[in-house]
């Protein structure tokens, strides 16, 4: 029962809390206001209008067309896409390598266990920056100059200016190409469904499925051969035409992948070892094949252990992609937080935008992990 005294105490507490909240709010407003005024007085914050101004500098590598007449806004997008590319490639490659290493860490073969353990301990105990500078120096010093580039079958070339690959020219063939690719995809999809159905019924896949897979593969090969490939040609200072992968890009991806794969390997190992030995033995006793044991018995509970720390590793890769600025690859930090900031002097706006990008990306990874975790979590009935 609430008596009048308690009611009064409650009311007083409410008023006190409201007053404290109000004071904190006022203080926050005052601080924000003072900050804005002081920043303006120092010429440090003057709005986001610069995003529509011409940037005036070129970017060596971009996924969208950017040149010296592009705006700072476009430079921001180009840098962002480059950062996303690095982070995505780094995450995929580190995950693949990390899983392979992690499985090898618990392999029954002692030499394999020993080697992977050696790799993990060596790689994860050196700073990422060291890996990066090492790869940059290795590529710069050990690969030949562009004049003496190593030819790879006469269609690709490797030098310390990068790897030059042939690239298909999508001219008037684009429609034909797209429809062929679409047909191949449809055929592959039907084949996959037939395969799956057959397997779940414990039957051999029908002849039609095999025929469709072969057909889609053949179509793909035909498309690849029939394309108008543009092979890089040495002219003047550099190779022209085709696709050019900058050495800075390669060293960055290599460093991010090799370094983070070592951590992911340990996470995967921990996940696998967290599954009780008894369960494995029980599954074997029931006559499940080793592949079935891995897929049905070990992986589902192991994922619960693996996913949260691996998500941490992914956010690390996203943030570490900003080390691109050290080797001079034009990522967001390099072109926006670096060059654009220096040219415009809009430190506050640019730092805030860059910080927001990393914040949003890392938060997205956290949300995706949470959703995934909920799906694989133990359902307690």
């Amino acid at each position: 029962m609430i008596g009048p005294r308690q009611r009064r105490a409650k009311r007083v507490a409410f008023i006190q809390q409201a007053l404290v909240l109000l004071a904190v709010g006022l203080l926050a407003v005052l601080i924000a206001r003072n900050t804005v005024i002081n920043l303006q007085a120092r010429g440090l914050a003057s709005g986001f209008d610069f995003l529509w101004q011409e940037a005036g500098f070129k970017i060596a590598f971009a996924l969208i067309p950017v040149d010296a007449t592009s705006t700072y806004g476009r430079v921001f997008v180009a840098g962002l896409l480059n950062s996303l590319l690095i982070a995505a490639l780094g995450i995929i490659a580190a995950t693949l390598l990390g899983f392979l290493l992690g499985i090898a860490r618990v392999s029954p073969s002692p030499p394999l266990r020993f080697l992977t353990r050696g790799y993990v301990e060596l790689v994860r105990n050196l700073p990422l920056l060291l890996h990066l500078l090492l790869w940059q120096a290795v590529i710069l010093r050990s690969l030949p100059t562009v004049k003496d580039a190593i030819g790879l079958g006469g269609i690709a070339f490797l030098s310390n200016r990068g790897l030059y690959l042939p690239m298909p020219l999508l001219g008037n063939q684009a429609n034909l190409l797209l429809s062929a690719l679409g047909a191949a995809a449809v055929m592959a999809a039907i084949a996959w469904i037939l395969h799956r159905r057959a397997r779940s019924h414990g039957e051999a896949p029908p002849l039609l499925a095999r025929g469709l897979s072969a057909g889609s593969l053949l179509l793909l090969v035909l498309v690849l051969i029939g394309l108008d490939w543009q092979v890089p040609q040495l002219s003047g200072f550099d190779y022209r035409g085709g696709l050019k992968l900058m050495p800075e890009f390669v060293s960055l991806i290599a460093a991010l992948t090799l370094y983070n794969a070592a951590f992911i390997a340990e996470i995967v190992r921990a996940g696998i070892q967290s599954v009780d030995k008894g369960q494995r033995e029980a599954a074997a006793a029931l006559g499940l094949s080793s592949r079935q044991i891995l897929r049905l018995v070990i992986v589902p509970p192991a994922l619960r252990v693996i996913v949260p720390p691996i998500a941490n590793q992914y956010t690390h890769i996203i943030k570490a992609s900003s080390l691109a600025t050290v080797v001079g690859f034009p990522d967001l930090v390099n072109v926006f937080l670096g060059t654009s900031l220096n040219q415009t002097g809009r430190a506050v706006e640019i730092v805030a935008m860059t910080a927001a990008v990393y914040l949003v990306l890392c938060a997205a990874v956290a949300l995706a992990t949470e959703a995934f975790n909920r799906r694989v979590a133990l359902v307690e009935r």
Partner: protein
Amino acid sequence: MKKYLMSAVIAASLAAAPALAAEGERVAAVKARGELICGTSTGTAIGLSTLDETGKWSGLEVDYCRALAAALLGDAAKVKFVPLEFKNAFAALQSGSVDILARGASWTFTRDTEMKFSFIGPYMYDGQSFMVKKSRNVSKIADLGGASICVSAGTTSELNLSDYFRVNNLDFTPIVANSREQNLANLEADRCDAYTNERGGLAASRLGLADPDAYVIFDEIISKEPLSATIKQDDPAFHDIAAWTYYALVNAEELGITSANVTELANSSPNPEVQRLMGKTGDFGTKLGLANDWAVKAIATGGNYGEIFERNLGSGSRVKLSRGLNNLWTKGGLIYAPPVR
């Protein structure tokens, strides 16, 4: 009623507390600290700001900061050099962590107006050019079409490069590095075909290469680069002191005052111009808020402008840069200082 209105306005403006530095605030801060904080290059700008193996700074920019410390604090040793990469240099100045920047920054419109900096006046008139390997057999910029060009991130060089190549319909790939060292490593390894920077900077960096004679610097210039010491635009008194210290060094050269004869001339020169500069007559030092012998202290530190140039960049140095535009106006150059009067 009006009185209340007035006090309300004052109260409101106090609450807003715009932190505009009052006149003399930076000067007072430096004096209270007893040390001038001068932002320089990372120590590799040979002739401008160089750090040697023993941890000693030298160079034209360094000598200017020492002269300023001597004028301001009476002691050339009371200066702390903060090595800054170019991309951090302006932020360091804006945030107030250095008092003055003397690290090869060009005086430009945006920096002067929008970024609210104040330029002391060019201590060196430079221009952007290119350094290439002689073995490339290129001798002019027009030959560089399609080349990969090394450039430092966030510099005016990066913009000038884009502008010039666009105007002249030349293609190029920028190889952007944060430091001069990385740019030079890239050039040596043929990662890029040319390295672009101010001619003075190029001449200095060439000395640090394994085989300096294998490189050539173009005579062509694609930009005007008036390198100037830079301060925040918040203390006119500090600007006066910084500017007049520089003018004192230039006037000293014009008047024939050197580090060797400055003490003697301060006492015995019959020339009224020298007497005013040396504080023998008038109270020019006091008007700056300094000791009256401020200029004597500044000039005694590293000599006049000409001495400083020759020792660090000219015939007395390894760089061997001719004075060219950096000669006195009386000798066909652009170096000119207003009179002390």
